[in-house]
C-alpha cells in the first residue's frame, strides 16, 4: 500500500473512531491575517481555543488583534476582549472598529481568568479574546493546568471562538498554537494594515499541520 493510501486509510479509521474530531471542523471566523487564516483553515475555529504566542517584541500580536476587530466589525459580530494587563489602546484602532467590542480591563491575571470563565459561557459573543501579554511569565506558569483544561471543556460546548494571546507557549492541550516570532522594525511604520498583515508569518507549534498543508495545497 502506498504511503498516501495508508494515510487515507488511517484518516478514515480515526474519523470513525473519533467522530467528535469531524464535528469540530465547523464554523470558522476569519481573522484578516492571511497566514493565520490559512494555518487554521478559514480562520479561528468556533468552540475551540486557539493560542497565538507573541514570542518576540513587535512581532505583530497587536496587528492580529486589530485585524480581528476590524473583520468581526464588518461581519457585525460581537467580540469580548479580556485584557489581563490592561494594555489595549483604543486609539490604535479606528473608532468604528470598536463599536462591537466589550473590553474588560482587568487588574490581575486572576481577574482575567474569572472574567473568561463567565464570558465564554455567554452565547452572545462570536469571539472571546483573552490577552495575557504583559503578565509576567512566572505568574502565568504558576496557574495550574487544570484551569485551562476546565476552560477547554467549557468552550467545547460553547459557541464562541476563543483566542488566547500569550507571551510564551502556555495553554496545555490547545488545539492550535501559532507562534509569531519575527520582530518588525520601524520600517514597517509606512505599511498599510493589509500589507502588514500579509507580511506576518506564523509557525504552527501545535495543531494539525498536515491538514493545514493539505489545504494550502
Amino acid at each position, binding site marked *: 500500500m502506498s504511503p498516501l493510501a495508508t494515510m487515507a486509510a488511517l484518516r478514515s479509521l480515526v474519523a470513525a473512531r473519533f467522530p467528535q474530531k469531524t464535528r469540530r471542523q465547523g464554523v470558522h471566523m476569519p481573522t484578516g491575517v492571511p497566514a493565520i487564516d490559512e494555518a487554521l483553515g478559514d480562520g479561528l475555529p468556533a468552540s475551540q481555543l486557539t493560542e497565538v504566542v507573541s514570542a*518576540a517584541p513587535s512581532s505583530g500580536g497587536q*496587528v492580529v488583534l486589530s485585524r480581528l476587530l476590524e473583520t468581526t466589525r464588518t461581519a457585525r459580530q460581537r467580540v469580548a476582549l479580556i485584557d489581563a494587563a490592561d494594555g489595549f489602546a483604543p486609539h490604535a484602532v479606528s473608532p468604528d472598529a*470598536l463599536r*462591537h467590542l466589550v473590553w474588560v*480591563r482587568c487588574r490581575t491575571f486572576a481577574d482575567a481568568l*474569572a472574567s473568561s*470563565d463567565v464570558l465564554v*459561557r455567554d452565547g452572545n459573543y462570536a469571539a472571546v479574546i483573552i490577552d495575557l501579554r504583559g503578565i509576567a511569565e512566572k505568574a502565568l506558569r504558576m496557574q495550574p493546568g487544570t484551569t485551562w483544561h*476546565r476552560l477547554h471543556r467549557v468552550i467545547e460546548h460553547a459557541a464562541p471562538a476563543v483566542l488566547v494571546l500569550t507571551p510564551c507557549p502556555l495553554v496545555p492541550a490547545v488545539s492550535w498554537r501559532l507562534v509569531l516570532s519575527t520582530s518588525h522594525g520601524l520600517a*514597517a511604520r509606512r505599511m498599510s494594515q493589509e500589507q502588514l498583515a500579509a507580511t506576518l508569518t506564523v509557525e504552527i507549534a501545535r495543531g494539525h499541520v498536515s491538514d493545514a498543508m493539505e489545504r494550502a495545497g
Partner: protein
Amino acid sequence: MKFCVLWVPDFRLHALRRSDAALTGRAAALITGEGRKATIAEASPEAKGVTPGVAVTLAMAQCPGIILRPRDPAAEVEAQRILIAAAFSLSPRVEATAAGRCTVDLQGADAVRTEAQMRLCIRELAKAGLSTRIGAAATPLLANMAAQCAGPLLIVSDTRNFLRPLPLSFAAPTLAQTEILSGWGIRTLGDLTDLTKADIAQRLGTEGVALWERAAGKTTSVLRHVEPSRTFEAEWEYEPPVESIEPLFFRLRAFAERIALELRAAQLVAEELTLTLFLEDETDYRRSFRLPEANADLDSWLRVLDSHLETVRTAARVARVRLVAKPIRAPEKQGGLFDTGLRDPAAFWENLARVSAIVGEGRVGTPLISDTHKPDTFVLVKPTELVPAPADPPIHPQRGLRLRRFRPPWPAHVEFAGQRPAALESAQLRGAICAVAGPWHISGEWWKPKAWAVETWHVELREGGVYQLAHTGDVWRVEGVLD
C-alpha cells in the same frame, strides 16, 4: 457575601423519597447496619418520636406505620446532580463539597439579584423534593455554618455577631479538645474567641490554633470546581419491572426536573426529547418528541410526555426507562431585518454585571474615544444591544504596527547622541537604539491651568522591538510597544 453553601439536611432520605413514590407523605426512615445492629440513620418529620441512632425495633414500636429503607446510591447521585444544577444557576464556580452540600463562589455576582436567585433555587429544589437551606458569607466555612442555621436562607453580614452564640461544635473540635474546653466552661464560639489566639496556641498547640481560627471565621479554603453537566439524559432500572403508567410518570417527572434545571444552568434549551422504554422481553420502545418551541420548561415537557404515555401499550413490562434531551442554544430573539441583536439579552447584561463586579466598576464596556488630542483619553460606555452597520472606511487609515500600552508607563532614562535618542534604560527594558522616528509634539488645553504637552518618539532597539517613548518636562516614559 462571597460564597454560599446549599445544604440539604437529611439528604440521603430526601434522595430516597424523590425516587420512591410509595414514600410520599408517609412516615419513613433510612436505616444503617444489618440485622439486630440496624439503627435509624435519618427519619422523616412524619415519623414522630423516631430519632437518628435508635434501634430499628424501637423505631417500629414508636411509629408502627413507619417504612424503613436502606440507602439508595443511584437516587443519591440523581439528587446530587439536581443540587449541583441549582448551584450553577447562581455562579459558574461550584464545588460539590459533600453529598447534599455544594459551595458556590459568588465573586462578582450582584447581591440583590443573587439573593432573589437563591430564593428561587430554594423553591425549585423544594418542588423537586429537596428541602434546601442556603447560607451566604465571606468564606466557604462561614457560609457552611450559615447554611446550618438558615431557615431557609441566611446571609451573614456581621460575622462576629453571627459566630458568637453558635455552639462550639460548629468549629468541629476533636473529642479531646471538647473535653478540655468544656472543662474550662467554654460552650460557644464566642467563649473561645474571647481567649487570645496566643493563649490557645500555648495550651492546645497548632490544632488549637486551627480550632480558634475556625471559631473566629478566619479559615478559608480553595474550592475544587466541578463542571456543569453536558449530557442531558437520565436512566433508571426498575426492580421489579413495572406495568402501569404511574411509576413510569413519577420517574420521568423526577428526570425532567433535573434535566430542565441542568439545561437552564448551562443557558441551553431542549429542542427534542427522546423517551426509551426497555422492555422485559429484551425489546425497546423509542419515541422522539420535537418540541413546538425549544425550551427548558418542565410543565410543557410533562404535558408532552403524559399525553403520549397514556396512549402507549407495550407487549411486556418496562424494565428500564431513559429520557434524553437534545440541547441547543436559546434561539435568537426576533429583530429587525438587518439587526444583529443579542441572542440572550438577560444573560448578556447579567454576565456584564458579574464581570464588572470582578474587575471593578467602570472597567467593562465599549471604548469610546474622547473628543481630544490628549493621548489615551477615552471612556467606556454601555454596549449597545444591536451591533450597528459598519461605517465607511476612514480616508486616512492608520499605518504601521499598533500600540500596546503599558499602564502605568515605565519610567525610563534616555541617552542622546546629538539630537537623537541613542540608548534606553528602564527597570523592565534596556538597550541601544538603532532607529528612531519623531519627535511628534502635541499639546492641548493651554487655556486651562492643567495644560498638557508631550513629545513622542518611536524607537527601535538593536535587540528587537519598537517602543513608544513620551517626554514630558524632564521625565521620560516608555508608553508601550508597537506590536
